[in-house]
């Protein structure tokens, strides 16, 4: 924590290490991290900061018809004062659902400068049966002025899904979409 405060990652990164850790602590508590749930699922966690907001997710992955399936997600968000909790929850749930779809299926390829996936028959978007059954969203309560909520919950989904896949398979996933064959990583 001391190191995180003294040497923040990246240039011009004005995050508050306490709030960053805060969402991780909250999601740890709400998801029962290290509890018996750990055995039922391949769990992955990730946290993120952008638009002056903090987001962390725990994804609980199983398999469905031989494919990775995120069954349940816990989210902790610090975006200051939440004006409309129900709409804010909906946005976070949507970011999680779309994030899972993008991380697993949403590949774009280019040929001669043109995107090859030019409609939904080739560009796969997550559908009803692939979406989790539950996304539990928790907001950190404070009296800080409101900050972004559209983007912040989206990117950490990718990390959490990749970590759950690592837990499930022992393999690291760096190239999205994760459900496609992964290129060999160079040996370090």
């Amino acid at each position, binding site marked *: 924590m001391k190191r995180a405060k003294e040497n923040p990652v990246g240039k011009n990164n004005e995050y508050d290490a306490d709030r960053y850790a805060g969402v991780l602590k909250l999601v740890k508590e709400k998801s029962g991290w290290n509890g018996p749930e750990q055995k039922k699922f391949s769990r992955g966690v990730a946290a993120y900061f952008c638009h002056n907001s903090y987001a962390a997710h725990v994804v609980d992955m199983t398999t469905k018809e031989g494919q990775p399936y995120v069954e349940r997600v816990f989210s902790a968000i610090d975006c200051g004062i939440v004006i409309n909790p*129900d709409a804010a929850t909906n946005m976070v*749930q949507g970011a999680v*659902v779309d994030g899972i779809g993008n991380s697993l299926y949403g590949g774009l390829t280019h040929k001669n400068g043109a995107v090859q996936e030019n409609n*939904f028959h080739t560009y796969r978007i997550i*559908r*009803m049966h692939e979406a989790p*059954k539950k*996304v539990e969203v928790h907001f950190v309560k404070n009296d800080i002025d409101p900050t972004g909520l559209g983007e912040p919950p989206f990117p950490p989904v990718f990390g959490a899904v990749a970590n759950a896949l690592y837990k499930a398979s022992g393999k690291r996933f760096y190239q999205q979409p994760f459900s496609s064959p992964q290129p060999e990583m160079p040996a370090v």
Partner: protein
Amino acid sequence: MITLNINKKTYHVGAEPDTPLLWVLRDHVGLVGTKYGCGVAQCGACVVHLNGEAVRSCVTKVSRAEGKKVVTIEGLSATNTHPLQKAWLELDVSQCGYCQAGQIMSAAVLLKEKAKPTDKDIDDAMAGNICRCGTYLRIREAIHLAAELQGKGETK
């Protein structure tokens, strides 16, 4: 001239028989609640009912609708009080809303066929409707709620 019955009203439109029904609904008749999404029957934004069945109006030739009953989102309920509409409002399902007319029209056929749909029924019936805002959880919840409202006799 093609004669159509849309939402219980008769319309005469000057469209070629192979014009997509969606074009006729939006551009000739002015019912713009039905949306254009992909144009290739992949997204479900353009779902309407043709004699009670869900069809993708973007790939349905208008000639196929002749002599049949077309229902669009505008005609689902005269008072906007279809159980699905009530449930959608109650649970604040929509975000951007673009796909939602199609979602509701697909769900309406499901509820007509299965008064108490299971999660699996919903998975199957709604697989053809995509939502980029990711509101699937609330759509599922709203379909269950609408089934409950419908069961209590709260009909349009």
